[in-house]
């Protein structure tokens, strides 16, 4: 898997509101079965299965088998990677700009 391909799968998975709801449901209660997830969604079982498959492909959901039961776990690692790659980098210059402004204003006062 190339990085580009990984990012595409990840952002595509996050672009859908139902899939974001699924992630929120797992955040509240991790390790749910398909049936449990279906109870909280107004959608066919098949629809939920497809959305879960997209989340699994993007590595946002990690399946664990307990006997015959498939449990779905939220995998936070790709979100951390998005944070490192797409958020922290852009946050830094802005934080520096604010701290420079503060220094300048405080200097002008004194």
């Amino acid at each position, binding site marked *: 898997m190339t990085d580009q391909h990984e990012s595409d799968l990840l952002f595509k998975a996050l672009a859908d509101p139902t899939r974001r709801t699924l992630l929120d449901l797992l955040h509240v209660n*991790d390790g749910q079965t398909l049936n449990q997830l279906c109870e909280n969604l107004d959608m066919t079982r098949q629809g939920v299965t497809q959305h879960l498959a997209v989340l699994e492909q993007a590595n946002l959901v990690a399946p664990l088998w307990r006997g015959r039961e498939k449990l779905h776990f939220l995998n936070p690692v790709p979100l951390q990677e998005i944070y*490192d790659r797409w958020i922290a980098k852009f946050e830094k210059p802005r934080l520096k700009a604010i701290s420079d402004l503060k220094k300048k204003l405080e200097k002008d006062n004194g």
Partner: protein
Amino acid sequence: MAKSTFVYVTYIRTTQERLWRALTEDAEFMKQYWFGVHCQSEWKTGSPWKMLGSDGTVLDDGEIIAADPPRKLVIRWQHRTRPELAAEGPSLCTIELETFDKSVKLAITHTIEREPSKFIDAVSGGWPKIISNLKSLLESGESVMENPYPHGK
């Protein structure tokens, strides 16, 4: 008693052998992605295991329940420094490595026999940062973060 389980999965472009070394024997390498922390063990089934902070404090300790290099490692993991977390007793950390194409799938499952668990909540903030750092370091030679809490949180 109910179980608290957290699962962390990532794919790293490396070999199982390199990743195994990065997770076990190579303490200096470990410090680079684990924010100064490293583990000490013989890494064999039954060996004692401990995790040391940068000042040498034992943060966690326990035992290697199973070691199958470079595939699987199971650690009985007891926290030591924060009393409210230590009181929850030992947890079980399973680390699995599997080759997929040109990458290695790293899956970490951390469980404790209680629900809810303050300990699992505490480690759940750390693991994604550590794993993301490890992936970056193995793939590019640079870790993304030296400080896990850059804004003082």
